[in-house]
């Protein structure tokens, strides 16, 4: 008979592998509604693979809409048969490619996480007011710890990236301007670009990568360890306890880090221009001329805003994480992607506002 799967007398894992290849071919060849027989009567010695084989055989047969029977005098496959009988032989309809369900589900999840994020923002704002009214409720020690962590972690990377950025910008612009003999003006370009745009943005990217992800990972790990639940049962609101100190630290540390990056960048530019025989005194004079206090203030304010966003996104990723060890990694990734996106979007919006109002 064609629709018969016969198993050999010694059914070990190797035999199972071969038998399954044959069985798949046979099962595929039968039309829905047909019958198939699993013949176990020859089997004398069997490993656990037989149970697994029979289980999968029944479930595949059921999903193809086949009537599956066994010849099984020794009862090797009876456990699997019973299991599949309990589940019922309902042939599952072939899965239609669905359009509406996944779309709807994705929309629902999106709306849900948006709503959750709004709730988080709302609570953060209200807790901020609470802390402003009762400063003693601010976890100052946690703030200092987070501040030190952001600053110490961030400073070396921020200084070196700032320096390299200045070096590259000065070199590229000076190389072009040299054609017109005005390479000194690359000092203008460099300093304005650094103070108004690139300093804060690059620092924000570094802070998101180092500290935003660390916030998310710390909070997500606390969540996995039920520490957040413990805070709640101790009536310590996680937002006041974990989020506010970190956000405040990120906001406070960013202007300082950005200023460091900007100065390092200027230093890089000075070296490039010195190599092009422009004396440092002239360079610094141009820089001081080009940059107004307003530019500096704008840059630092931007930096603080980016820090706030990095902290918010990092903490939110942590709080929204899955309660598992996997959730920690996912939270860190989301903090980085979300933080950089938020900084970029905010930068764009600010640029538009500055342009509109001629700042």
């Amino acid at each position, binding site marked *: 008979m064609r629709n018969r799967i016969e198993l050999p007398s010694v059914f070990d894992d190797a035999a199972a592998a071969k038998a399954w290849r044959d069985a798949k071919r046979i099962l595929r060849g039968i039309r829905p509604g047909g019958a198939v027989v699993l013949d176990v009567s020859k089997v004398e010695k069997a490993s656990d693979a037989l149970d697994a084989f029979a289980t999968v055989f029944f479930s595949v047969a059921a999903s193809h809409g086949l009537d599956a029977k066994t010849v099984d005098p020794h009862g090797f496959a009876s456990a699997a048969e019973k299991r599949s009988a309990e589940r019922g032989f309902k042939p599952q309809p072939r899965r239609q490619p669905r359009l509406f369900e996944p779309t709807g589900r994705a929309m629902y999840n999106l709306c849900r996480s948006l709503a959750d994020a709004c709730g988080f923002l709302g609570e953060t704002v209200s807790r901020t007011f609470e802390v402003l009214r009762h400063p003693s409720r601010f976890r100052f020690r946690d703030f200092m*710890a987070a501040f030190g962590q952001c600053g110490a972690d961030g400073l070396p990377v921020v200084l070196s990236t700032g320096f390299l950025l200045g070096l590259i910008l000065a070199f590229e612009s000076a190389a072009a301007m040299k054609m017109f003999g005005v390479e000194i003006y690359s000092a203008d370009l460099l300093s304005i670009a650094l103070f108004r745009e690139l300093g804060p943005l690059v620092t924000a990217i570094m802070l998101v990568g180092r500290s935003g992800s660390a916030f998310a990972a710390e909070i997500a*790990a*606390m969540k996995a*360890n*039920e*520490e957040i*639940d*413990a805070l*709640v*049962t*101790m*009536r*310590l609101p996680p937002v006041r306890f974990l989020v506010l100190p970190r956000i405040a630290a990120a906001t406070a540390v960013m202007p300082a880090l950005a200023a460091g990056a900007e100065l390092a960048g200027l230093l890089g530019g000075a070296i490039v221009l010195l190599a092009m025989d422009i004396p440092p005194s002239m360079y610094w004079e141009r820089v001081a001329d080009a940059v107004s206090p307003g530019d500096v203030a704008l840059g630092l304010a931007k930096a603080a805003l980016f820090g706030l966003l990095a902290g918010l996104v990092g903490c939110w990723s942590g709080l929204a994480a899955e309660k598992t060890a996997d959730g920690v990694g996912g939270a860190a990734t989301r903090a980085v992607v979300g933080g950089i996106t938020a900084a970029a979007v905010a930068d764009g919006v600010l640029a538009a506002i500055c342009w509109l109002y001629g700042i």
Partner: protein
Amino acid sequence: MADPENIVECEDLSAGYPGRTVLEHVSFSVKRGEIFALLGGSGCGKSTIMKHIAGLNPPVAGRLRVSGIEMNAANRDRILAGIGVMFQSGALFGSMTLLENVMLPLEEFSPLPPELRTACALAKLELVGLREFAGFLPSAISGGMKKRAAIARAMALDPGLILLDEPSAGLDPVTSAALDDLVLKLREERGTTFIIVTHELPSVFKIADRCAIFDRDRRGMAACGVPAELREKRDDPFIEAYFNRGGTNGR
């Protein structure tokens, strides 16, 4: 039917998580000053019930009253003021020493001046035998010690109701017996109510006034009553098997 004697009242409670009901039609109540054990096989929903009582997840359906107040988001903090919780995992704050962990609730809610707070926290650690380890981080102590430190933290504010999720898991028989004695002592001296999730039948017979047993197969409560009486019950195979699986367990 809010009985002032009852500190916890579940009425036809469905326990679980959003989209996943674990137990249905659970009704029991815990009297003030009682030591109440939650029993049942692994994964039957004991911790889930515990989390409902601690206000972490809203009940899926039914009513839950704690300290005579309906448990919901608005009342939660008022209820939690009288509850100390020890989680199955301990849930100590990893960045703080044991002393800081125990101090935390005191810092936030105790009217005591700082010097007395420290002494108070140290006394709690002493109760669970961890005074010498006050300066250790949770990562530097053993699993059983974490459990005990977590119990000390749950007791920090001398709550009237203490929830312990498997306090004796991972403890040797001597320490575990000492813990039982501590529970009895606190109940004796302060009238503290305990709700304890445990798998230790000897300890149940020793300290628990009453217990509830949950059955995963019927997704509900199998029985509620005095442990020694339930053990003699012969009409429910599940309960019989539960108490007598090891032949002479707990006798």
